[in-house]
């Protein structure tokens, strides 16, 4: 099944190939979620975001999430790709997706992939505002 998982930490995300990457003759549906840099967080204007990762562990955790999703649902292909480095407003920072014969599986799996990624994958996001920077979720 290894060839059916795409797990990557990259500098820049190219969204134009995602559907081609997930496409499969046995699939009737492909569901993809893309996280992008939003201009405002709680009313404050974000200039950019910076992502840092513990790459070796992040790839391992992403691979676990993809494998768990393939056990939970009948999926043909799964992608988890996260960007690192400095990202401007509107830039894509994460792509998760799955293809499956029927749409229930790919929708549920896609939601699971992003929710679990946000909980367990060692990636840290720093919000850069005009006058300060904040590590997201660091403090209660």
């Amino acid at each position, binding site marked *: 099944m290894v060839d059916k998982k795409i797990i990557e930490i990259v500098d820049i995300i190219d969204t134009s190939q995602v559907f081609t990457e997930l496409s499969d003759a046995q699939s009737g549906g492909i569901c993809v979620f893309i996280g992008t840099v939003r201009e405002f967080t709680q009313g404050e204007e974000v200039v950019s975001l910076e992502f*840092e990762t513990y790459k070796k*562990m992040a790839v391992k955790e992403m691979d676990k999430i993809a494998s768990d999703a393939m056990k939970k649902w009948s999926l043909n292909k799964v992608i988890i790709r996260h960007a690192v480095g400095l990202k401007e407003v509107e830039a894509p920072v994460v792509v998760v997706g799955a293809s499956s014969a029927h749409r229930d599986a790919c929708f549920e799996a896609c939601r699971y992939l992003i929710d679990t990624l*946000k909980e367990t*994958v*060692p990636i*840290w996001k720093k919000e850069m505002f005009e006058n300060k920077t904040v590590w997201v*979720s*660091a403090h209660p």
Partner: protein
Amino acid sequence: MEVLLFGIAKDIVGKSQLQFLETDIIPSSVSELKKMISDTYPEFRNLSSLAVAVNSEYASDDVPLNRNDEIAIIPPVSGG
């Protein structure tokens, strides 16, 4: 023994890794490492959570540490 630091942990300590010398006494478990680092840098106590990875896997408090392990401090993650 080296302890890798990421995100806010790197900012708190002021460097990207902690180095234990051959002659240093090393923490014997994850919980001891957490206590040691929080005693030295009390700001760690203000974080939402604090995890430790041993050989790039999350490790619970009772996991023992060895000199050759790759250890990392994992402050609250915020990918996506």
